[in-house]
């Protein structure tokens, strides 16, 4: 029976294959983070970092699709959604969605924990973070993210270490 394959999740079937190729062609397609997105409920992107090369137009599509996927999910649902050939692990904080796109076999819970860690760091750094902080300190948010993730790999899992580094970087500016 070649006309149907066992276990094709339905979200995946909606996607034409050539579009998902972008995400597959990365040098190490196995475990790394593909992108991290911060979006508000209206779908405005507040932070987007891609660890695989994507065309500008493709990025837009990705952001749009991810927002569509996560925004209407019930709080009682799982925090994982299949996205093209990958999965998005997201978490909602007030009106902000933090989404990480990783490989289908990667550890979901670990990324949930790291999203939470990232939010804690932001919260500590901006003392009680809100969406506006992220809007006006866009470059600092990227700096924090760069300390946190490098080349699609989680670099630092210590909140204290990152916060210390950030205060040193602040001094340099």
């Amino acid at each position, binding site marked *: *029976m*070649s*006309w*149907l394959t*066992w*276990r094709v*999740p*339905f979200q995946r079937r909606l996607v034409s294959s050539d579009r998902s190729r972008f995400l597959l062609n990365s*040098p*190490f397609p*196995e*475990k*790394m983070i593909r992108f991290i997105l911060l979006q508000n409920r209206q779908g*405005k*992107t*507040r*932070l*987007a970092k891609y*660890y695989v*090369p994507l065309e*500008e137009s493709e*990025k*837009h599509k990705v952001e749009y699709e991810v927002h569509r996927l996560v925004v209407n999910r*019930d709080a*009682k*649902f*799982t*925090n*994982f*959604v*299949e996205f093209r050939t990958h999965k998005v692990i997201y978490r909602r904080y007030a009106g902000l969605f933090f989404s990480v796109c990783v490989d289908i076999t990667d*550890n*979901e*819970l*670990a990324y*949930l*924990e790291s999203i939470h860690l990232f939010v804690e760091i932001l919260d500590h750094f901006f003392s009680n973070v809100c969406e506006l902080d992220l*809007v*006006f300190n*866009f*470059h600092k948010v*990227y*700096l924090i993210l*760069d300390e946190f993730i*490098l*080349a699609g*790999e*989680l*670099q*630092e*899992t*210590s909140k204290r*270490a990152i916060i210390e*580094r950030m205060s*040193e*970087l602040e001094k*340099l*500016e």
Partner: protein
Amino acid sequence: MASSNSLMYSLFQRSLEDLIKGIRLQLHGDSSFISKSLDEIRREIKLTDLSTKSIALQKLSYLAALHGVDMSWAAFHAVEVVSSSRFGDKRIGYHAIAQSFNDQTPVLLLITNQLRKDLNSSNEYEVSLALECLSRVGTDDLARDLTSEVFTLLGSSKAFVRKKAIGVVLRVFDKYPDAVKVCFKRLVENLESSDQHILSAVVGVFCELTTKDPRSYLPLAPEFYKILVDSRNTWVLIKVLKVFAKLASIEPRLAKKVADPICEHMRRNVGKSLLFECIRTVVSGLSDQETALKLAVAKIRDFLVDDDPNLKYLGLHALSIVAPKHLWAVLENKEAVVKALSDEDPNVKLEALHLLMAMVNEDNVSEISRILMNYALKSGPLFCNEVIGSVLLACSRNSYEIVVDFDWYLSLLGEMARIPHCQRGQEIGHQLIDIGMRVKDARPELVRISRALLIDPALLGNQSLHPILSAAAWASGEYVEFSKTSYDIAEALLQPRTSLLPPSIRAIYIHSTFKVLVFSLKAYFSAQESTSSPLVEESTSSVSSPENAFTYKSISSLVNMIELGLCSLSGTLDVEVQERAKNVLGFTGMIKHKIAEEVTAQGSEIEASRAVAFMEDVFSEELCPVSATAQEKFPLPDGLELKENLEDLQEICGEFLKPVVESNSNLFSSSEKISFSVARLRISDQQEASSSSSHPPESASLLAEHRKRHGMYYLSSQKSDDHNDSNGNNNTLNEYPPANEISADSFNPKKKMNQSKPRPVVVKLDEGDDFKMKPDASSNDEPLSRAIQTALMGKGKEKEREKDNHERSLDPGIKEQSSRKEKKTKKKNGEKSSKHRSRRRSDKDAIAAKPVEIVDFLL
């Protein structure tokens, strides 16, 4: 003037904050404001003042990141800003580069020197910026040119820098595999670091590398094992577990070794993410380790009953991994799985569905299908079709292996068709026909179900169910002999509402009507014959059941009904429908006349029944499934040019050929592609019989039409006639394997002998040899894994292969270099040691020492 302008720009430049505020103030769309700001940025970025330039670049980065503005035009300016001595400017520049550069960016080569300078900087923050940039934009050239800098940083005394350098190694290895020779030793040394941050980074790198090519990293198992036992860092442990999951898949002895420490971690009260990773490692790679598996399944149960949907989902997911090998784990948790079907989250439902389908066997298939059909009725379209699709797939797998009672299965198919959200018409229709062909005993029920489907008014309106109707129409015509009421079938096929159907399906309806008509006439005539001359041998006596006994009255009312139903179609616009309707009408016109004559004068009966016998012959040959490989077994006759003449044909009428080519699921013989033949055309044109009748009824007249137009692309009629004969009569030509060859294993003796109702024979073809893909062996030849194998194992084999490859593909310079390296490594032959330092220095030694070392470690 120009200079005062530029002064003005830099004095009154908007900062990033001004820009953001400005955008936020725009009430009615921000596009005009953004394009105005872009103009400003374009002016500012051209100024010589670096701080003005960098602010402009920062604003541009902001607009590019969050408003999707193109910033590729500013690539050169980003390079300028990076060269600034101010850290703030440099940061903005590097950020812009990481954000907007790709492998094709032309100015990329200009940053090599800047990166080198910053990588060598004494300021660790500048080093870190450069490393981050390299990790994002590193090309082949950059990786090659900066390998030595990265190597130096791998040994940096500052943990912070070293950590980042480790992260960058991944990109460098990927782009420039030869860097392995330089950097690998230091990378491995970092595995022994006591610093958790460094360990985390380096384990992350190895996790990536191992996923790609596990075999090369087997020698490092002792180091990973040490980390697995000693480390208490969740993230490090998760990554190490991933490494072991890969390694254990190629070295089974490792599984035994690591099972204990993994169980230790599971028993410890660890975080959920680590616990889940342990579970996943056990169920996917160590499922032969009994204690570990039992412990893991116990933990899975905790997940399943947890209120957290994430844990529930992951529990189900873990079960689905373990299901193929250890079904007991799923059966133990069956209730939780069934309960999860009604979960709110579609992910959970889907996972539960997959698990249930994994549980299906011939004993519980009807029970599980019952449960699932109920869920399908209740749930939304998406999940409903997922359920239907899963049931269809599970039941049809391996020629309906798990289906014992086909009457039940056919009624299930009928039930599915009536589920309101059902969109799986294609598959259901396919299976109806497939079962009709494969399972003789199921045909009476198939005809009954088909008629019920045909007269169901709900199905006609749903477009995605039309394939079911098409299949039902075909089956009721093809197997009309099993029906007790052929009149009712004809009535169902001719109901006025069929006008809702697309022409291609109506054509099938009409053709099926024709089959019903011919069958009825035959039954009528043979009954007449047997009464008038009882000595005449009856060929179809077995099929004329008493219910189908036709009187003159009933047969003429059938003919009249058909005429009435079809006469309106003879003027329809669609050629296919029109032609078929006309054919049938022509036949009825002729036969009606004969029947009428017959009543008055018995003498002409021979003539009438002969015409009907012709048609009966056409349809009486049974259609059988044909192996997809049948064509290959048929030797090509001399002088038959397949490719040359028909290549163009493919282009021109690809649409017509495609359905035949694609139906490699044994529906129709692929050999018929060549012989859609003259004989076939005569059938539909002049009602002439032909010995070969095993043709798909559809498309024949389309092909006839096509043949008229593109005659030059067809084979000469003489040839295809010959060919056709050999196809139809297996006896005349011995080389051709019987199309409906039944393989020995279809009468599987192990199948339930004590069943109250024996499972009917399912015709199964030699599917073993079709569609098997050979695993691609080329992946091993990746330059990176080659380099690493050389660096780590130094096996002669690998080296030879490397040399071969070099000789084949690389230029002489590099060849020389690599052979020199070989010589160097061969010279050294130090003492055995488990330390990597010596291992790397003396490759030759490692060849001998390495395999032994793994064994020691394992025992």
